[in-house]
């Protein structure tokens, strides 16, 4: 799916932010001309699903207009938001999406635990206003950046605001060259153990956990896996390229890899070519390092692609720290794969 970054601005300062380098750039907002171009580009490539991200996408001055436009063009839209927006913007947004079928538009709301992450009271009020208006369209999301994380508050929010009963869980990955708080490879086992300690809350609230990329299958016991599969019906341990398109029409694969083989969207004839380019880059990196653990190379689950061997961003981070010259070589070699 294409992730369109409407702006690089955000009102929060999450300690784990993996988009920090993007946010540090001068303010940028996607122009209408580029919105139309991207809509055409994606539709011509037979892609009718799109995600709107930021920064905080709702900060774009024409956010509601862009959203309504993309819906009019036939897209199914997912908006990744903090839920923190002005009352006027929220009222306007809620009014324009009220009549839409739920499958056409949904929100993924990135939640921080106020007890563990600095959060202004006013932000919490705004978040609650957002959830009161759009809770049933909203899936909760949580980024794990410390191994003693607490997600108890999310179950309360889900019940209170009738949110979707699926919790998107992501591991905060270290960004090469950045100082974001993150989970190290060594901590992943503890993170999974901690997550499973919320088993009763998941079951009681009937909320299903869903893993973003980077969770390795081998750090989950058979008992935990059984529970997960029974609760969710499936469990994914994959890592596929998420294509991010910036307000100035640059394209890269995932925030943590934003400096790697960054291109202009105009270099490609179709969105499928973009995906193929970055999938091939990921394969190239995985050809050098099989996975985040030494045993990934000989792992049957990795060979059978049941597990990706951790997120490719974790592999890039390792290469950056241990063999930056090799990473540059991979980048340069991949440059030649650009469609002519």
């Amino acid at each position: 799916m294409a992730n369109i970054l409407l702006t690089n601005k955000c009102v929060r300062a999450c300690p784990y932010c993996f988009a920090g380098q993007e946010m540090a750039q001068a303010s940028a907002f996607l122009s209408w001309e580029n919105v139309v171009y991207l809509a055409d580009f994606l539709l011509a490539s037979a892609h009718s699903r799109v995600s709107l991200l930021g920064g905080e996408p709702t900060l774009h001055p024409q956010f509601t207009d862009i959203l309504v436009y993309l819906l009019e063009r036939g897209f199914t839209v997912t908006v990744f938001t903090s839920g923190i927006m002005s009352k006027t913007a929220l009222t306007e947004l809620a009014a324009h999406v009220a009549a839409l079928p739920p499958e056409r538009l949904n929100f993924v709301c990135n939640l921080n635990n106020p007890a563990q992450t600095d959060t202004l009271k006013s932000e919490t009020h705004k978040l609650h206003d957002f959830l009161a208006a759009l809770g049933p369209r909203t899936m909760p999301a949580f980024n794990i950046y410390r191994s003693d994380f607490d997600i108890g508050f999310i179950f309360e929010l889900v019940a209170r605001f009738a949110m979707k009963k699926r919790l998107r869980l992501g591991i905060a990955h270290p960004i090469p060259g950045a100082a974001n708080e993150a989970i190290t490879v060594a901590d992943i086992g503890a993170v999974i153990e901690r997550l499973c300690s919320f088993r009763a809350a998941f079951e009681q609230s009937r909320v299903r956990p869903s893993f973003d990329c980077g969770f390795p299958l081998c750090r989950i016991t058979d008992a935990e896996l059984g529970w997960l599969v029974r609760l969710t019906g499936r469990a994914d341990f994959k890592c596929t390229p998420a294509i991010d398109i910036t307000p100035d029409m640059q394209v890269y694969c995932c925030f943590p890899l934003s400096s790697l083989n960054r291109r202009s969207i105009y270099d490609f004839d179709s969105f499928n070519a973009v995906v193929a380019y970055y999938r091939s880059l990921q394969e190239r990196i995985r050809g050098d390092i099989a996975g985040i653990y030494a045993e990934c190379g000989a792992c049957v689950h990795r060979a059978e692609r049941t597990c990706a061997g951790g997120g490719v961003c974790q592999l890039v981070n390792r290469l950056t720290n241990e063999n930056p010259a090799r990473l540059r070589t991979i980048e340069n070699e991949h440059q030649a794969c650009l469609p002519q």
Partner: protein
Amino acid sequence: MNTRLVCPNDAALIGRLARRALCVRVTAPQDIAAAAALARRHNSLVCVICETASLEDIEVSGDWQGIPIALAVARTGPFRRLAAKLKGLRALNLRVYLPCTTDALVGARLLASVGVPVCVTLDPAAAMDWEALADLMTYALLNIARHAPIEPFQTMADGWRPAERGEDWGRALFDDPERYLHVAASGAVALSARELAAGEFVGDVCELDSPRLKQRVDERKERWRELFLENHFCARCPSWRLCRGRFSAGKTEPDGCAEFFGEAAEIIERARAKSARSPTWQA
């Protein structure tokens, strides 16, 4: 002369213009249906031209079905307010005319992309964002996805003859005296909307078929020759064949128009080449 007459919605005037092809001007959208009915009583209706402030304020009426409408608006308004009207607009025989302001050019692109035909009014008297205009023309003729036509670029492309005199694309803007004459309520005739507004008339409706009026039209069509006699920079401009000095008035040097029309010719050639590479399949 088989000319179409652009005239106000004036019963007395329209009564004088029996059996003519009319474009009737109204200023209120609620007058469109009545104006069309009046014109069709004794004339052939080309279209109703409605000039109003903003597209967002227009209530699309079911009475407009079957009426060709040129809806001239100053702006489109926010897209969220247009969305509910789009289905109605697309169901009509309607083209939205927009000025060449930066916002309106964006509005034109948005409307075309959701299937509403548009036309941007290249007005020699207005300041132009030539770069944005070239960008819109690229979108109009070379874009990767289907969209509604964007005039006058389509007419420009259809009439472009690189080695000979092409057709006047001004007709997409009702600005071609061979095709459109502009009539005041008094019956006075002008060769363009601008001249009508300035009170610069060339005759009266009672002279419509007269050789004198035809001569005035022919003179206007050949007025470009004066630019050569004056050694105007337009006469030496490589983009001449496409613009024919339309933007020459009051200028002592090109202001971006030459670059735009040069690029426009390239865009048209590229669009033709693209079209030739993917011919329609035939049995």
